[in-house]
Structure formats: structure tokens, C-alpha cells
């Protein structure tokens, strides 16, 4: 973290926040005082007051008197399971694009009353009317990101620009890929020029062959461990999210990042209100609050992902203003595509291919021999004990 810049921006935010807090709240929300909202978000995905940052939820509670019950999830699928099972009532969830598509189709999220969210005008037009919510009824963009390749300049020669770096035998044992089938397959699909949302088995087969060819070069399949391994230099090449690269770069300036020329996937995490929400009005107030310049700026600084909020992007206090990794220029912008929700058949195919990948290439004969000899030894022991028992019993006859 750029501690100093953070500190400066926090001070500025604190000063700024007092003014708009009173200015924008034209509607009377005093009757919501004392109520609660349940917010369900990704882990590490809100400015929480650590390291002198702004505590967004505390500020909301202070301003509105509405209590925020904040819980986190670590995957869209986990969030979906919780929401679907109805075990808990959430008023705010922040899933990614393809999951929102599914939630809308299954009527698990409800339409938002945008008249209660005047700050929606802060959102860039390019993040409105996205494929999963074409009429802008259900979701409000929160963060945007793209996957790219991170590499260690001390190990990798030249300036790579293609996914092929992740298949380069020269760097065998230094490469890492996602330990999650959708993202891992996407790297192979982009490399081979296939559609990441293909439903064609042959396409997935081709991507599988690529991953299989890559496996001997792969040091490990990782998710959160990626930070440690890239920062310490344990591994030299991996695919990960652009925003996370920036936090790694703070700890290891030898790292570099690029968007592969073949293209890459883009995601948008958007705020939604589940159908089961008990306090929709407060939820909308919360969404509006998150879009407010000072709050969005604090979040953008903390999360390090690109924000769709134009008041932040144009803010001179924003330390990532004009950052070409988060906000590529037109020339630097790669070809992108969003993940779509896969039908259950394709999903099944993907996971079994993934399991095959994990099984593939492992030497199993040692295990067979070991298991068989273990069985033989233990059987022999049982027989030995039984026989001895019989012999002893015969003494008493």
C-alpha cells in the first residue's frame, strides 16, 4: 500500500465526507433509524478501516442510524448456495456478472427503484445495460476487472504479450494457473482462440488438451496463495486479476503485468437486492451511499480494482488515476469477453474434465502396491491373532 498517499486521501475523504453527507440526502429516511440491513459481499471487498482507511460501514451507520450486518463469501457459487437455500435474508449481495444472470433468471434478485439512487448518475455509461441486465433494472456496478498475466522480470526475458508465456517450456516449474476450473479453462480457451462460453464439447476438449500439455510445466494451481508465491519469487508466471497485481507489485517491484493480445475475460461485480430482502428502502439507501464520491473513492483505494464510478476516476486525489493497468487506454485495451452462466450439462463436462486433469499424469502404481501390501500385512496379523487366540483357548479345555 502506498501508505502516504492513503493517509492523504483519507484525511481528504474525512473532510469531504462531512459536506455531501448532508447535501445529497434530500429524501427523508429518518424512519429507517434503528433498522438493520444484511450485506453479503466478497471478502476484502470494502474499505473497512484497517490501515487508517475509511470504515465505510461504520460511516453509513453513523449517518443513517441503520445497522449494517456485514458478512463475506469467497465464491459466487457459495453465495448462490446461501441465497438459494434461503438460510439467511440478505438485503445486499454483490456477485459477478454471470451469477447475476442466473440470479435474475431464477428470480432470486428483485428490481431496484433507481429513483432512490440519484448517485447512479456517477456510473460510466459503458457499464450500464450490460448483457446480464440489459435494461438496467436489477444491478448497480461496483467494481470492474480483467484477468491478465503477471510475471517476474528477473526470470522472464523480453516483453511477453501472449498467453503462450504460460505454456513456455523454458519456465517449467515456475508457472501457476488458477485452482478453479472456469478461470483455468478460460486461459486455455483464450490461448487457443476458443469461445469462453462455448457449449460445444469439442471446444472444451481442445482446451483440456492444452491444460494437460501445460500441467507438467505447472508448479501449482492456486487461488489466494498466489500473493505469497509471486511476492516471494517462489513462482514467476501466473494469470490473475489486474487489481490484485497492484497489491503484489507494492510488495515485489520486480513483477510486471500485461493483457495478452489474444484477449482476456472481463468481469463486473454488481450490487443487487435479493428478493428475500426485508428492508429494501435501506438497501437502496446503502447502494446510493456506496456510489457517493467519497465512499467510492475510499473503496477504490482499498480494493485496488477498477471502479465504474466516474467521479472517482476523474478525482485528482485518486492514487490510481490514469493507471494504465486498471484503466487501459483505447490502444492498450485488450479484446474482452464476459463469462456467461453455463448450462448444467456444460458445467458437468467442465468439472469432470477438470477432475481428469488433476488425476492425469500421476503415478499410481506405487499406491496400488502400497495398498495391497498393507491389506496383506493386516490380514496376516488378524489371522495370526485369531490363531493364537484359538491355541490359547484350547489350553482351558
Amino acid at each position, binding site marked *: 500500500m502506498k501508505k502516504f498517499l492513503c493517509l492523504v486521501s483519507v484525511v481528504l475523504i474525512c473532510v469531504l465526507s462531512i459536506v455531501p453527507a448532508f447535501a445529497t440526502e434530500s429524501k427523508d429516511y429518518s424512519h429507517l433509524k434503528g433498522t438493520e440491513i444484511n450485506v453479503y459481499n466478497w471478502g476484502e471487498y470494502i474499505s473497512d478501516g484497517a490501515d487508517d482507511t475509511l470504515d465505510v460501514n461504520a460511516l453509513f451507520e453513523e449517518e443513517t442510524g441503520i445497522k449494517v450486518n456485514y458478512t463475506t463469501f469467497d465464491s459466487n457459487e457459495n453465495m448462490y448456495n446461501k441465497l438459494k437455500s434461503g438460510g439467511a435474508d440478505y438485503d445486499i449481495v454483490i456477485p459477478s456478472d454471470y451469477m447475476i444472470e442466473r440470479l435474475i433468471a431464477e428470480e432470486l434478485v428483485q428490481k431496484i427503484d433507481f429513483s432512490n439512487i440519484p448517485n447512479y448518475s456517477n456510473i460510466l455509461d459503458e457499464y450500464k445495460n450490460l448483457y446480464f441486465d440489459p435494461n438496467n433494472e436489477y444491478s448497480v456496478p461496483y467494481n470492474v476487472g480483467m484477468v491478465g498475466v503477471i510475471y517476474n522480470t528477473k526470470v522472464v526475458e523480453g516483453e511477453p504479450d501472449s498467453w503462450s508465456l504460460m505454456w513456455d517450456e523454458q519456465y517449467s516449474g515456475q508457472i501457476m494457473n488458477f485452482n478453479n476450473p472456469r478461470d483455468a479453462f478460460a486461459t486455455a480457451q483464450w490461448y487457443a482462440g476458443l469461445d469462453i462460453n462455448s457449449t460445444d464439447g469439442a471446444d472444451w476438449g481442445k482446451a483440456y488438451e492444452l491444460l494437460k500439455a501445460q500441467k507438467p510445466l505447472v508448479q501449482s494451481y492456486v487461488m489466494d496463495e498466489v500473493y505469497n508465491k509471486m511476492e516471494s519469487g*517462489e513462482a514467476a508466471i501466473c494469470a490473475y486479476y489486474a487489481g490484485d497485481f497492484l497489491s503484489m507489485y507494492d510488495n515485489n517491484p520486480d513483477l510486471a503485468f500485461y493483457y495478452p493480445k489474444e484477449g482476456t475475460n472481463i468481469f463486473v461485480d454488481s450490487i443487487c437486492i435479493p428478493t428475500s430482502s426485508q428492508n429494501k428502502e435501506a438497501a437502496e439507501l446503502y447502494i446510493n451511499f456506496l456510489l457517493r464520491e467519497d465512499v467510492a473513492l475510499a473503496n477504490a483505494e482499498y480494493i485496488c480494482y477498477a471502479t465504474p464510478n466516474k467521479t472517482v476516476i476523474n478525482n485528482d486525489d485518486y492514487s490510481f488515476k490514469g493507471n494504465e493497468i486498471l484503466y487501459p487506454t483505447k490502444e492498450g485495451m485488450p479484446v474482452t469477453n464476459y463469462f456467461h452462466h453455463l448450462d448444467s450439462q456444460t458445467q458437468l463436462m467442465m468439472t469432470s474434465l477438470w477432475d481428469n486433469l488433476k488425476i492425469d499424469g500421476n503415478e499410481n502404481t506405487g499406491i496400488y502396491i502400497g495398498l495391497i501390501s498393507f491389506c496383506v500385512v*493386516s490380514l496376516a496379523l488378524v489371522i495370526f491373532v485369531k490363531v493364537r487366540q484359538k491355541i490359547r483357548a484350547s489350553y482351558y479345555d
Partner: protein
Amino acid sequence: MNKKNLFRQKLCAAPHLVWSAIFIVVPLIMVAYYSFTNADGEFTLENIYRLSDYTDTFLRSLWYGIVATLICLVIAYPLAYIISQMKVKVQTTMMMLVMIPMWMNFLIRTYAWMNILEDSGIINKLLSLLGMEPVHMINTGGAVILGMVYNFLPYMILPIYTVLAKLDRSLIEAAQDLGAGKVRVFSKVVFPLSVSGVVSGITMVFVPSVSTFYISQKLGGGTFALIGDVIEMQFQVSNNFNFGAALSLVLMVLILICMAFMNKFSSSEDVGGGMVL
């Protein structure tokens, strides 16, 4: 009076029975139900057929579980025995030392092992300081088994220690009076009497080892999968509860078979050794 007592006994057991019914029996029935149905709730055997693709994964998990359990046993038994022979005050301190690592979260301890075993980790840095060749340890089966042994060792030490500490010393003295040497006292008296501790230790190490997923992900580098990983993925990634349930069911059955085998082994050993209890 007997009737009254019986009623009281039942009343006392009621909370436990209700607890077991809600949190053990009902979930087990749900696991079985999910295993034999598809996403629409119709009866199907498809989940069971699919299991054959995972034979290697099952065998690998079983093998790792067995190896980890055996290593735990080899380390834990002498340790528990030595501790049980110490002065009572020292014993409590030693047991404290065994327990202390368990106060820290299991996930954090495993994550720490990742940093220790890495090619650029603590051990290899030490080795290179001493001018020795680095050893590749992380992302291998050995690292996973090490993780299992490290994490589950206390569960082996505790039950064995408890049995050995409670051992009736007069039995040992009797054996010595009858002329048994050290080795004989151990093999004919001490060990047979401690088998119950060994069996519960084996159960407590084997079951979590076979079904673990976190250790294999962090220390195995995700290059191979154990059955716990496959089950986890069915729930977390594919949302395929039915197949995940089928895998869990088979895992449970496998563990039950192993346990039944173990119990047979131990009960016959008890008789053979002349268990007094």
C-alpha cells in the same frame, strides 16, 4: 423404583437423542437422499455410476490416510509412553506442549507449512546458507502427508496417553514378580491394555486424513486431487449437490468398513492379551 429410574435415565438422555437425531441422523438421510436423486429430485443411479471415474482418487486418499495414520502411530505411541512415565507435574506440562499448537487455527498452521517447505522457503534458505543443495518438498505427496501428520498427531497422542496414564501399575508389578522382563511386560501387559487408546487414536487420525481437502490444496499445490477436494468442488464450484453427496456417501462407507475391520482387530487382541477390564 426401577421404573422410575429408567424414566429418569431416559429423560437425561433425551437432549442428546434429539441432538443426534437432528444433527447426525437427519443429515445422513439427506446425504443418502441426494446421492440417489438428480437435480430435479427424481430417482437415479447416475451419480453412483459416475463414481467409478474416481477410483484412483479414492485409492490415493485411502493410501495417504493410511500412511499418515501409521506415521502418527509410530511417533505418538513412544511419545505417549515416555510422557506417561514422567512425574505427574512434568506430564501436565508435556501434555500442554502437545495441545498448544491446537490453539492456533488449523488453516493458519497449514498455510505456515507452505512457507516453510517452499523452494524459496525457510528450510531451503537454511540449506543454501549451509552450502547444501536445495530440496524440493512443496507440491508433493510427501508434503501433504507431512501436513496430515503434523495436524492430526495430537489426536493420536491424547487417547494413547490417557489409557497409559490410567494403567493399573499393580498389573505391571505382578508381571514383574512373575519374572517377566521389560520387553515382555510391554508386549504382554502394557501394549494389550493400551489397544483401546490406539484404536480411538487411529480413528481420530484416519478419518480426517482421508477426507481432508485444505491440506492437499495448500501443500499439494493442486496438481493432484484427493477425494475431499473433489467433494469440495462439487459443492463450491459445480453446485452439484447430488454427485457430491454420492461421493461423500461412498467415502463414509469406505471409512466404516475400515473402522469395522479395526474394531474386529482390536477386540480379538483384547481377548488374546487377556484384557482385564
